[in-house]
């Protein structure tokens, strides 16, 4: 009776199918002409092309970051397809019925509601397929209260001034290697604007899907909540199963003005590669929120389960006095997955508060790192941070690391950091089994207990999904 640990783990990735659909793509490779092509294809104004070219020229001077605890073959940026769009029968879909039936079936299979009638009660959805936004539901209903929720490309056309005002205001195009690349070649994404005093009446959601084998996905999301406005935004993602790696380099910018609140939740389930680490998405994402106004509030909740490599640090810049930043994260890695994820909380305003709760779960041969920075600037009188970073190991050959960086330049600040590492070992499992509970259910119960503080931050339906997803991802890793 050898160890029950490490037996299987091969719950197949059920989103790994490819949709056979005609796509309108540019040849692989990157140069100024490709950027001009993308911009022209989208009928963009000159200022946006200039933004892209500036970012591109800066990107050429940059090198890929090496500091993360991940190892991977560097992507060949000349082999990537920077624009791929499902070829529409007509240039614009007037209604869902005009969407290619093959594409509609894809989203049905994924369980993403793109028909308003079938939509989840109270969730408006924007769907991005490869580089292009396919549909946005409930738009009219939202417009009635002044909310703008549409694809990024559309926002550029219909609300250019808003886009121009806020694009790059939180993540400058020169911010980092992948943000610069995204700024040069981003194709679509979502745009949300909640006007002054409006509480968004439903959760907004974007569903991202990479379909094309060679295409990278470079989406751009911008959410602005004006004074006293509030919104809860959900992001989900999957990709087909290929034996090559695809690059996903997104940028998400959030802006919260006085007393505004933005809650951003992600369940990331990009294809993670197979058991031997072949294939999978390289997920290099820059997400940052600016608490610009007084008493503004930005909260990131993420459940990261997919991707071969995850490099992602949803952050908050706490500029306004009394503003609050939160980061709740569950990152699960299995097999050969590698994740280096965490957050940055930059306290600039007075009495700013931040909370970091990070739960890392590693199984198989995976590597899972938390990397977080808490920075208190000189003027951040009375700033407070609480960080809790817990790691759980399943089996013998995985690893977990924690890299907390703390820089405090104001003596009145209070920064607390707690960290624990635990193991789901044989003893714990035997205890459950001895009470008649099968190993799989035991793991699911232990993991849910471990992640409880994060899951309770998720909207109800997402929390249920996340719970199931974690169990699925760990199926057989102990058994």
């Amino acid at each position, binding site marked *: *009776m*050898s160890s029950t640990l490490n037996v299987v783990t091969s719950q197949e990735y059920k989103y790994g199918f490819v949709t056979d659909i005609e796509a309108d793509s540019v040849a692989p490779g990157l140069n100024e002409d490709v950027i001009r092509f993308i911009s022209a294809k989208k009928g963009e104004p000159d200022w946006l092309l200039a933004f892209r070219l500036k970012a591109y020229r800066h990107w050429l001077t940059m090198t890929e970051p090496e500091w993360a605890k991940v190892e991977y073959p560097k992507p060949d940026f000349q082999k990537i397809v920077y624009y791929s769009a499902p070829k529409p029968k007509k240039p614009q879909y007037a209604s869902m019925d005009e969407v290619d039936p093959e594409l509609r079936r894809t989203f049905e299979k994924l369980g993403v509601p793109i028909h308003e009638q079938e939509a989840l009660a109270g969730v408006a959805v924007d769907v991005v397929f490869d580089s292009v936004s396919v549909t946005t539901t409930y738009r009219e209903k939202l417009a009635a209260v002044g909310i703008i929720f549409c694809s990024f490309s559309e926002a550029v056309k219909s609300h250019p001034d808003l886009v121009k005002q806020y694009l790059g205001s939180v993540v400058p195009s020169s911010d980092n290697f992948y943000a610069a690349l995204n700024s040069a070649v981003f194709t679509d994404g979502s745009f949300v604007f909640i006007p002054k005093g409006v509480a968004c009446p439903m959760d907004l959601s974007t569903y991202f899907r990479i379909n094309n084998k060679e295409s990278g996905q470079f989406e751009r999301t911008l959410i602005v909540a004006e004074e006293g406005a509030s919104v809860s935004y959900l992001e989900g993602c999957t990709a087909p199963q290929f034996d090559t790696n695809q690059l996903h380099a997104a940028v998400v910018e959030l802006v919260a003005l006085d007393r505004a609140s933005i809650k951003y939740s992600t369940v990331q389930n990009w294809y993670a590669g197979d058991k031997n680490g072949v294939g999978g998405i390289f997920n290099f994402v820059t997400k940052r929120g600016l608490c610009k106004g007084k008493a503004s509030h930005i909260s990131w909740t993420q459940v990261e389960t997919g991707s071969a490599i995850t490099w992602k640090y949803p952050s908050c810049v706490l500029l306004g006095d009394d503003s609050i930043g939160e980061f709740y994260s569950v990152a699960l890695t299995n097999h050969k997955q590698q994740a280096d994820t965490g957050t940055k909380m930059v306290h600039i305003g007075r009495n700013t508060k931040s909370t970091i709760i990070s739960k890392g779960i590693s199984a198989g041969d995976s590597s899972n790192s938390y990397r977080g920075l808490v920075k208190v600037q000189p003027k951040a009188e009375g700033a407070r941070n609480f960080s809790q970073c817990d790691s759980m190991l399943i089996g013998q050959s995985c690893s977990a690391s924690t890299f907390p960086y703390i820089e405090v330049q104001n003596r009145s600040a209070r920064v607390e950091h707690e960290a624990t590492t635990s193991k789901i070992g044989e003893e714990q499992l035997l205890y459950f*089994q001895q009470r*008649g509970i099968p*190993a799989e259910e035991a793991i699911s119960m232990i993991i849910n207990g471990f992640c409880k503080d994060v899951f309770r931050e998720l909207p109800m339906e997402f929390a249920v999904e996340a719970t199931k997803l974690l169990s699925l991802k760990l199926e057989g890793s102990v058994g």
Partner: protein
Amino acid sequence: MLSIKNLTASINGTPVLKGIDLEIKAGEIHAIMGPNGSGKSTLGKVLVGHPAYEVTGGEVLYEGRNLFDMAADERARAGLFMGFQHPIEVPGVSNAAFLRLAYNKKAEAEGRDELDPLEFDDFIHEKIKLVAMKEEFLDRSLNEGFSGGEKKRNEILQMAVLEPKLAILDELDSGLDIDALRVLGDAVNKLQRPDRALLIITHFPRILETIQPQFVHVLSGGRILKSAGKELAIELEDRGYDWVLEEAAAGGAR
């Protein structure tokens, strides 16, 4: 109910059980005593299917079935229970949720109705009375931060919920205060029936005054060296284990 024949087992290649023979019938209460490190807990863990132990020989029949053909959780649902010497802590998992899942798994296996959270709430309130446990322990994380005695109380609560056919209680008495020992001893007695059996592992005769065994066995060096009636427990208390070892070495009776 349980029939152990020449059972040998090792951990990390080191033999710990070196030929155990033991017969437990329905309605019986057995006690196992013996020096530290003699293999008492090991015997229990092997019986309930701890994966770290390798069974190297012998045979165990549980209600006529080969015990080693059953997975650990299957053994539990078939009525085998072990109250652990050192119950493990599980942060974030509520005690009540754990108890309910365990109850429902067994109910499902036996074709009985599962209990929803409200029904279970009524059910568990009767059970906690039996072990005099405070309600607040139901909402706490499973064993997390429980004192040694509280953990033992929680083990007996689980036993009361699952009503096992054969319960192995490993040092239930260690870490218990005098009152708790009496309460839990009484609870175990109340749970005992003619169709159930108990195997009590202990160092002290005191608990055997409440839970009175018909058989006391001395386990030493991975073997049962002596078996007798409950008077043996008292004799061991007075004389220690050396004489048993000497007797055995001299080829004495078992």
